[in-house]
């Protein structure tokens, strides 16, 4: 299962995706965030704790309780407020 990161989240990861073995596919988005926060560097872990860093599953913004399966396309996007 590939977890994609966009823009500055990708820079923090140092790679454009994070791979999770299909057998370890988390039950839902909240569990995925928790798993990722234990696996990535402190800065990215802090970003992933921000509820405004949103998760899209199969190109749809997903709530924390959305269930996941290993074939889903999952991506995280950062908020921004500049103008």
């Amino acid at each position, binding site marked *: 299962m590939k977890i994609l990161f966009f823009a500055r989240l990708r820079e923090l990861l140092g790679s454009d995706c994070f791979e999770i073995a299909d057998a370890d596919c988390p039950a839902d988005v909240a569990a995925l965030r928790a798993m990722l926060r234990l696996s990535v560097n402190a800065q990215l872990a802090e970003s992933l704790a*921000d509820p405004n860093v949103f998760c899209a599953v199969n190109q749809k*913004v997903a709530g924390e309780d959305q269930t996941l399966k290993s074939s889903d396309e999952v991506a995280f996007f950062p908020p*921004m407020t500049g*103008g």
Partner: protein
Amino acid sequence: MLSDRELEQYSRQLMLPDFRLEYQERLRASWVLVVGCGGLGSPLAIYLAAAGVGRLILADGDTVERTNLHRQILHGEADIGRSKAASAAALIGAHYPDCRVSQFTEKLQGEALNQAVASVNLVADGTDNYPTRFALNRACIRARKPLVSAAAARSEGQLATFDVAGGGACYRCLYPQEGANAALSCRDNGVLGPVVGVLGTLQALEVIKVLTGWGDSLRSRVLMMDLRSYEQNIVQIARRPDCPDCGDLD
């Protein structure tokens, strides 16, 4: 009815086979509130005036600073220290006299914000902080007005339309957490001028789409761009039933 002069002035957009005369008339009859006359608001406001939007209300409580000039292209050297809304209104008024421009040179908030939102057909958000963005979202929900929202910093940008009257999601359905002042801002994180220029220009295009019905708008979708690599994604946003701002709407 458009006059002969208007038909000539807008002939190149009316030449598009599916851009109908009635769309141009709709633009002329439209009032748009542009909040933020900075990096996004500059191309946004001038393209809307150029396209024939009949009335713009420009709101910005800030004054022009030298650090703005590389990206906030409605303002120039002589405008440093001047109200951004006044500077923008003067330039647009001079270039496009058909567009009626009014200005708010104070921070638009409270009842003045509600009245301004209620008076227009659409609100375009080009501000630089969460509190203003959440306040605009709530005012638009209250008045059932579409909100075209853009943001940019560094090399990144986002654009979305929130239209709860049309059954769509609101800004807070995407960004649930209030409290922080800003996420990624130009002031703290820097930005290349053309990056906000691209996003402000796309925001103008989106406003034209929403006002006229031409093309496919970003209603309940968010476009994310990283112009460092030109990568872009569009994801759908559904209304959240537990959204504190729009969850209790019919």
